[in-house]
């Protein structure tokens, strides 16, 4: 059911809305089962002293990568979408840990789910928000009439440099969204806005194993400036405020940042708690805000409005205003809930984690 209220335009067209309304036809999450407690990281690196930014993080197994994880999330999305996979006209995977620098993740995923050969496929990169721009492009495909359905995935198997502050939080997981016509969707997408600047807060060169970052520079000038700018502009352009949204979900690199930005924007715990998965699975980078959205869709009621704002280092934020439809409660039962992935846990120690993540020099 679409919102009855007309959405005001900004005069310079900052709000991005297609001519033909789009929405989420199906959605699916994937989080690997292994968990490394943050206390394990501090046991090895800080003698057990000092605070931890999350409780634990998800760690992928030996035979998992962004391809395998994306396939499972995509299958969950298909299960909820109730469409034939060969009706998908674009398969897009956003990640900062694609298995190859050249050779797309998306073609393997497309073939595995039965979307080939009559489909567009491409890999996306924008640090931790590579999935949401694939969503925006998918909205464009549907909204222009170029396709009925497009699949946008944000998935990561993030590497944290041993001993670095980010090792506590660099997790694995993500989500897949099939974007289709709004009138048959589980959740309409009412508008999107992107805020982008040249801000080098976090980066990795092609031949580096681990990323580097600007320490405190990653906070106020990076994460907070971009998320706040994107959220405030989107809300202004849509004539909404924090109180109009039942749920809000932000990029979640740790527990403190999304909670602080939520409060800055006027949101209360009851609005942001459902989507806040980082304490238990860590920062899933490209999938971070998106997997939070799946947890929200697992419980949202028809008519509930949702604000989603991602953040990618380098830097930029994509903000979306969404609204759950009457089709959501029944169709979401067709695939595992995100919380069931979160609760499916096998705790490991640091040594096992080092082995699983390829940190042991074998040659």
């Amino acid at each position: 059911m679409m919102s009855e209220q007309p959405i005001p335009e900004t005069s310079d067209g900052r709000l991005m809305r297609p001519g033909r309304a789009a929405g989420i036809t199906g959605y699916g999450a994937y989080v690997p089962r292994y968990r490394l407690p943050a206390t394990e990281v501090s046991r090895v690196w800080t003698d057990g002293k000092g605070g931890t930014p999350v409780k634990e993080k998800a760690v992928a197994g030996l035979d998992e990568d962004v391809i395998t994880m994306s396939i499972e999330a995509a299958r969950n999305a298909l299960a909820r979408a109730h469409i034939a996979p060969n009706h998908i006209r674009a398969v897009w995977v956003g990640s900062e840990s694609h298995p190859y620098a050249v050779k797309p993740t998306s073609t393997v995923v497309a073939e595995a789910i039965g979307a080939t050969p009559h489909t567009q496929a491409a890999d996306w990169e924008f640090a931790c928000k590579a999935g949401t721009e694939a969503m925006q492009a998918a909205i464009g495909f549907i909204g222009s009439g170029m396709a009925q359905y497009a699949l946008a995935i944000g998935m990561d198997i993030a590497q944290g440099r041993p001993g670095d502050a980010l090792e506590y939080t660099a997790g694995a997981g993500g989500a897949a969204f099939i974007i289709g016509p709004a009138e048959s969707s589980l959740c309409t997408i009412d508008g999107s806005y992107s805020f982008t600047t040249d801000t080098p807060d976090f980066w990795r060169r092609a031949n580096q194993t681990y990323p580097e970052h600007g320490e405190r520079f990653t906070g106020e000038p990076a994460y907070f400036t971009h998320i706040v700018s994107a959220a405030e502009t989107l809300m202004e352009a849509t004539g909404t405020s924090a109180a109009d949204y039942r749920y809000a979900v932000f990029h979640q690199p740790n527990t403190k940042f999304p909670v602080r930005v939520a409060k800055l924007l006027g949101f209360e715990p009851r609005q942001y708690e459902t989507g806040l998965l980082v304490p238990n699975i860590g920062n899933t980078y490209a999938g971070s805000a998106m997997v939070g959205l799946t947890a929200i869709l697992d419980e949202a009621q028809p008519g509930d409005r949702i604000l989603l704002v991602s953040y990618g280092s380098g830097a930029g934020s994509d903000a979306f205003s969404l609204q759950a439809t009457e089709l959501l409660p029944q169709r979401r039962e067709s695939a595992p809930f995100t919380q069931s992935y979160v609760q499916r846990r096998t705790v490991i120690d640091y040594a096992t984690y080092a082995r699983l993540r390829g940190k042991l020099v074998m040659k």
Partner: protein
Amino acid sequence: MRNQVVIAGIGLTPVGEHWETSLRHLAMEAIQVGLTDAGGLRPQALYVANSLAPALSRQSHLGALMADFSGLRGVEATTIEAAGASGGVALRQAVLAIAAGAVEVAMVLGVEKVTDQPSSSVESALATASDADYEAVQGLTSSAQAAMLMRRYLHEHQAPDDALAGFSLTAHHNAVSNPNAMFRRAIKPEQYAHAPVVSDPLNTFDAAPMADGAAVLILTRPDTLPGNGSHPVVEIAGSAVTTGALALHDQPDPLSMPAAQAATQQALLQSGLTLDDIQLFELHDRFSIYAALSLEAAGFAPRGAGWQLAQNGAISLSGRIPISTFGGSKARGEPGAATGVYQVAEAALQLQERAGENQVPNAVIALVQCLGGAGATAASHVLRRQG
């Protein structure tokens, strides 16, 4: 000294993480405020206090750069570097030039930009203030140096673990009403007790936060002050720079800080004043141990008792010897070489009765001191309000 030297203008930027502002733009902000405060005086000489720009901004030759960038192209200009004492030592050069009659109006600019590099680079750059061949090469950091002194001090004087807590408590309390301060929240004793350890026994509240900042003083003779000045005139009544052993292991008695003692004695002698005349002391508090040792070196407390002044309220704004009156390095922030200039500016604001809520009552005479390294350079100045 032949001519009297007085402060004609003061300019300060807030101390903090100025991500968007470059080294030269930060300096420019302070320069513009200082020149305006000085009522149109044009300096003939510029002394730049800076210690980290070559390492952290790949920029040396700051005298030429800052003169050029601030519209003073052509004036005599140079950088003065003495680690943490750079600000006081730069002021000394300005005082000498004016006292000797070589220069009529001088600008002292303290500027430091630490937020363009990761913290490991800042730590390496700071370590160049120690003995490179015998201390830094072993991995000694400035925090570790201070920690060793603090450990020895607490042991020798059988002081409790929280003996130095009062220094950060006082600093944070004073910074609440300083709009230029980096941290403007008071802290509680429990926070000190549970603070994470930086370098045992030194915790995060014993260490001032390195940050960006720029401070300017315009100095001249009394007869060249613009007539439209509305503030009381503050004179530099005493100015002294001394040095001591650089490496900790070469100091026969590291807790006595002989350079700090001598600099203060010389400055007082020049001014014709005694310790009893001093009503506030802007001291070196980059680490809390230096605050305690500075009070003892100056003679405000006997050896080993400096920490007690922090416990019994003597260092508060209404106490016998207020320190860190605008928050000190601990709460106002620690902009490296610029700190010595901030200290003099803050003391001058006190004597000019421009300190607002931080005003020390009836302040006429102030002592200001900054240190390089673990007391290897000491620069002491005595400021006196005229009239």
